């Protein structure tokens, strides 16, 4: 499943910051890497002063007052990003055949079959919902992770639109022209149902990653339990040694008592009592520790494993209604002078929506089993 994050390069940072500030109504006077920014009164921002200077990059060692550095790890960038994500998480974009090129299916690329022409005939408009989900896997160890995933679903059928997911990421990257947009129009309950479905799908799709972290965290917990067990074992050994030494002292004190005169005897008896007391304490501690060891330190184990337990949170960050046209695309194929038209269901930004079968063997034609010939029949790779 595609990662929806983008590399945080300096150029992406600058492009974003400039457009975001302008979208707030700010005026920006640029002098090379330095921007003088004025924020209009009443602008929809909590984090920016009325006027400030932005220095792009990290070159300035000691920024002057009212100057903010702008680079991938700068405070300013992170404030702008947080604010921007919260500002307009819901919206709509429109994909039309005028603004979007026809995307030929993977199974047509390669082989000797040539695509002469492709024409899209729109039949009706459809809506889809594209949601960016943040998946965070939290655990105490360093294995915790966070990633961003995209899910696109047809608003009416709930059908998953992988082609649209790819295209959505492309058109919302920093290289393409902005698509046209507008007010979202899907009903609230429809959106809720789609987001819920998206959440379920996203968990399914990142299950392998969750499993991986789950195993890593479990191993980390296991290692900690083992370390604790070894420490306790060491403690038991130390207590055993002390126990042994006190026992010998006790034996010695008995001998002293037997051989002593009255006064010394009283002193020796006192000492023996003390030793006996300590020995009893030690015996209790030791047997308690041994008992807990034999049981496998269940409480401690539980505590460690609870600490390493995984908390997977799936949060919808943005939801975009995508209006797209659905219809058919007629593809004109040619091979060694033979021309064969092929008509398949198609959605703008979504790609081919029908499956195509090999007319010889009936297998589905896919990127793994591409179309290789159209002479006589539509032939797949497997049976050609």
């Amino acid at each position, binding site marked *: 499943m595609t990662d929806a994050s983008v590399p945080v390069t300096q150029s992406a940072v600058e492009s974003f910051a400039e457009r975001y500030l302008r979208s707030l109504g700010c005026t920006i006077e640029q002098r090379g890497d330095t921007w003088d920014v004025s924020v209009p009164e009443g602008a929809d921002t909590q984090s920016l002063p009325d006027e400030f200077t932005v220095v792009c990059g990290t070159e300035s060692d000691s920024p002057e007052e009212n100057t903010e550095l702008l680079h991938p790890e700068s405070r300013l960038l992170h404030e702008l*990003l947080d604010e921007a994500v919260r500002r307009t998480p819901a919206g709509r974009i429109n994909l039309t055949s005028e603004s979007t090129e026809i995307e030929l299916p993977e199974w047509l690329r390669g082989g000797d079959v040539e695509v002469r022409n492709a024409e899209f005939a729109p039949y009706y408009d459809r809506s889809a919902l594209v949601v960016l989900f943040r998946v965070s896997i939290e655990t105490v160890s360093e294995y915790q992770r966070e990633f961003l995933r995209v899910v696109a679903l047809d608003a009416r059928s709930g059908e998953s639109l992988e082609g649209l997911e790819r295209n959505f990421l492309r058109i919302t990257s920093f290289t393409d022209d902005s698509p046209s947009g507008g007010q979202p129009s899907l009903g609230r309950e429809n959106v809720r149902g789609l987001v819920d479905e998206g959440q379920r799908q996203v968990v399914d799709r990142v299950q392998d990653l969750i499993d991986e972290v789950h195993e890593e965290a479990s191993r980390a917990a296991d290692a900690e339990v083992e370390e604790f067990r070894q420490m306790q074992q060491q403690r038991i050994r130390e207590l055993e040694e002390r126990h042994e030494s006190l026992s010998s002292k006790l034996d010695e004190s008995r001998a002293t008592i037997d051989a002593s005169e009255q006064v010394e005897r009283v002193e020796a008896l006192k000492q023996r009592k003390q030793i006996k007391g300590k020995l009893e304490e030690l015996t209790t501690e030791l047997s308690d520790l041994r008992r807990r060891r034999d049981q496998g330190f269940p409480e401690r184990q539980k505590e460690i494993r609870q600490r390493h337990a995984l908390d997977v949170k799936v949060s919808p960050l943005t939801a975009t209604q995508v209006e797209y046209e659905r219809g058919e695309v007629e593809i004109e194929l040619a091979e060694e002078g033979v021309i064969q038209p092929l008509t398949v269901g198609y959605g703008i930004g979504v790609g081919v929506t029908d499956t195509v079968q090999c007319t010889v063997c009936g297998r589905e034609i896919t990127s793994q089993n591409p179309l290789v010939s159209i002479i006589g029949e539509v032939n797949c790779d497997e049976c050609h």
Partner: protein
Amino acid sequence: MGSYDLVDIEVSHESTDDLLASWDEGSDGDAHLLSVQAARLRAGRPDSELWSLKQLDENSVKMLEHQVDAAYRALFEMDGKALLADEVGLGKTIEVGMILKEMHFRETDDSVLVLTPAQLAKQWQAELREKFGLDFVCNYDDEFAGFDAHDYVIASIDTAKSERHRQTVLDRDWDVLVLDEAHYVKNEETDRYDLIDRLSYNYAFFLTATPIQNELTDLYNVVSLLRPGLFGTRDVFHHYFVNSNQETLVNRNELQERLSKVMIRNRREDTDIDFTDRTIDTRTFEPTPKERELYQAVTDYVKGAYSQDQGQKLVLMLLQKEVVSSPVALKQTIEKRLYEQSELGHTSELESILDLIEEVDTVTKQERLLEIVEEARNNVEMGRVIVFTQFRATQRQVLDRLASEGYTVHAFHGGHSSDEKEQIVEDFEEEGGILVSTDAMSEGRNLQFCNILVNLDLPWNPMRVEQRIGRVHRIGQKRDVFVFNMALKDTVEEYVLERLYHKIDLFQQSVGELSSILSRLEESGTSFEDEIFERLMNAGSEVDLENDFDAMAVDLREQRDLADKLEEFNSGVFEGFDLGASDD
């Protein structure tokens, strides 16, 4: 994997209410696009650039692609906790220099502790200062006032673990820990291991060329210090990855995958480094009759004494090594045994050996050494030659002899302070001439400005031989390297050299390959040195001896499958650690 209990897992879906509220409010498309882009940028990785590289002076440090790649991966893909395990000579110190420079640039290095073997501390300090402009205080500096008094400290690991400093080191939260020769902490029962285990740090970079010294558990211990829990418990690790009956590796792919999260290993063959050629010239000389007589007497003595008392093995082995190094080295040890330790038995034998030593008036090796250095004086820049010997007494005599012949000489041995050692290497570079060194030079110090090396005597431990050669044949060496091995005919050196070292291709092996063969041998219980000594002692006649060493060589070759197995084992473990994964 294996038998461990899975921890609980809870999946929760955050509420969609906020999002739906925003849905109802509506928006224009552009503002929404910015929100989407902001969400995508916020989840993205920080800029994948090493910003500080531009600041480095290209004249001071030439960075190679694999080094930049390693620094990048250690910082950004391994979250600042990495085991840098390049083969010897690929510049691990440079990689760490780049990492520290970058962290300095990003101001994430308020306190840095670099722990190294004692003899390398000053070299680290000099390299970080000269190549990266990073100033560290070394524990051998006069200004060093304790581990809590400076923010950038380079120290020997043994100083750090000493009674005096240990608590101060542990009391501090270090931002960055660098541990050189990390295989020194492979044993979890040592104080060194304990120190690293208890240290508190945010980022750590461990360096070693030989992550597996003897067994896979070494790797477990080192990696577990860096990433506790990556491999689970020791028992689980062992049961899961090592087939103990056959000592083979199992579940290799998983081990590799796990290791790739924490370890970077570049191999010479995978880098774009153009190593110059290495020419080995083994010169075997006819000893004088007196030398031959002395050799025989010592060998007879050693054999006799060993058959009576095997407890004296070490000292007897020493005598056997010294007799081929120089009579003067031998003399010192024998006198010690006779006069200081009141040797009771064999007195007359030892005294007669002393007499024989006195009778040796020509030391063949030293005479022939003059030919090599003279050739170098005429043909090599500033006549620079490094002569290695194992013994101080030999070193002194060689130095005197060379000086008396008018050569510029430099001495390097373990008795010098770190500052003195720095100075000696500097003098040698500037003044040229001949540096006569003991194996105290072996680890870490770089002498690539010199390309002629003479092994006046040969260590019985082949790793030492390669360590010597590695001082000159490394990155930065622009010329072909010439290694001269000097041996006396019909002596143990000749056997070791001719019959063994050449047959196991010692002089063309890299340390990584060699160590795997040796670890294999040592796992069987005896060291390489012991093996040689035992054969020397047990051979009945000269012919037997020759045959015996031949057999050992053949044995080594024929048992190549053992070494191959180990090689396979190592490359199995480390396969894929070439130049690292791509950024995909």
